[in-house]
């Protein structure tokens, strides 16, 4: 049995948040650089250039890429051969608190009714999953509201099938238009139940490669192609660069249900993985 110290969790979370907010990950950077070459609409190309310039400035001068440094979601994968020497959720929130204070990040978390700010960006949203291993992995994803607000969930009818799923996703993207800071990424959860499909949609956004399932990978590519045909383009200015990646996670569902959730992600696509 391996023991993970809460202080190490706190520090790892803190550093991961800094990293996510200041350094555009190489996966997203690569896709944006490619889009700069392929986008032929002048204004849209200008926007992509600004996004790339912004990423360099953020990294070099330690300025957050975006002022909306988000609310933090933490995905923890914990093996059966590890134990934590204290309160895991508390340690994560300590890391969030220190990161948002020490790195001058925006505190964007408030009571839903009174709208009084919690002033330290806590609480983070923490999901813990277990597995048979000696691993302890935390994936940190601070996400802004611009794209999160455009996300949608619908309980489709089973007979709606692939056609219904595509229609629902396409409509969500069209309705969002230029608001969620395109070029976007799409995380899609299909199946499970009401909350499981929303969780899968968010978790899918952490991926950097297509689904290992051939059928699902095909659907990811088809949706990517169709979204890029909408002509929404970077910041809604038109062009062929609307979406940089589609990631679908699935789970079995009730015979009478077809839950589908689409989580829209902005071009910053902030996520960092830490292993302890």
């Amino acid at each position, binding site marked *: 049995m391996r023991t993970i110290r809460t202080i190490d969790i706190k520090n790892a979370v803190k550093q991961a948040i800094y990293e996510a907010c200041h350094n555009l990950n190489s996966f997203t950077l690569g896709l944006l650089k490619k889009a700069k070459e392929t986008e032929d609409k002048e204004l849209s190309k200008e926007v992509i250039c600004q996004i790339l310039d912004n990423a360099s400035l953020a990294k070099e001068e330690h*300025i957050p890429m975006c002022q909306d440094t988000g609310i933090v979601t933490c995905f923890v994968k914990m093996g059966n051969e590890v134990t934590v020497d204290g309160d895991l959720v508390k340690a994560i929130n300590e890391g969030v608190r220190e990161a948002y204070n020490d790195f001058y990040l925006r505190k964007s978390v408030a009571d839903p009714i009174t709208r009084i700010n919690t002033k330290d960006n806590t609480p983070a949203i923490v999901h813990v999953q277990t597995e048979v291993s000696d691993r302890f992995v935390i994936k940190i994803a601070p996400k802004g509201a611009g794209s999160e607000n455009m996300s949608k969930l619908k309980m489709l009818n089973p007979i709606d099938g692939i056609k219904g799923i595509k229609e629902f996703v396409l409509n969500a993207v069209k309705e969002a238009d230029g608001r969620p800071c395109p070029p976007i990424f799409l995380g899609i959860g299909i199946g499970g139940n009401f909350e499981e499909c929303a969780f899968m949609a968010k978790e899918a956004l952490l991926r950097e490669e297509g689904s290992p399932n051939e059928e699902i990978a095909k659907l990811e590519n088809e949706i990517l192609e169709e979204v890029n045909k909408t002509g929404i383009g970077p910041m809604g200015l038109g062009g062929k660069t609307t979406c940089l990646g589609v990631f679908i996670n699935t789970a079995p569902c009730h015979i009478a249900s077809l839950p589908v959730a689409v989580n829209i992600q902005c071009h910053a696509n902030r996520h960092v993985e830490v292993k302890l």
Partner: protein
Amino acid sequence: MIDVTKLHAGDIVYLDEVIYTARDAAHLRIAGLLENNADLPVNFKDSFIYYAGPTPTKPDGIVGSIGPTTSSRMDKFVSMMPKLGVKGMIGKGPRSESVKKACQEYKMVYLIVTGGAGALLSKRVVSCEEVAFNDLGCESIKKLEVKNFPAIVAYDTYGNDIFER
């Protein structure tokens, strides 16, 4: 100072202007003050409203990261913009027909800046002063002087719309 009637949807402009940040909460308060005929804490005449809430300013900095927030959340406040005498609004994303019409009727423009380019945009801010509703934190009203601030004209004073496809 820019003459907004000379701008057309699709133009790229580099602003040297005074702009005031205001988001949801600040708009709600301004609307309340106008409703009660109370004095406004800021004279917005001939300035721009920028839908933005920056990250905290570092001790040696001018302003934090300061990109735009989604403008459409402020659409319901567009009717008070002419009362404030602003030249226009700055944000991101498409907005409702009412905003487009107000721009045409009251000779205002709606400009967009690149969402998520908060670091780049912060370098074009030469001064920042918190001038009202300080208790709102990042949502307070800040007076910014910007130089060479890159924006795109989305709605002009002639009813044109960059988002129309």
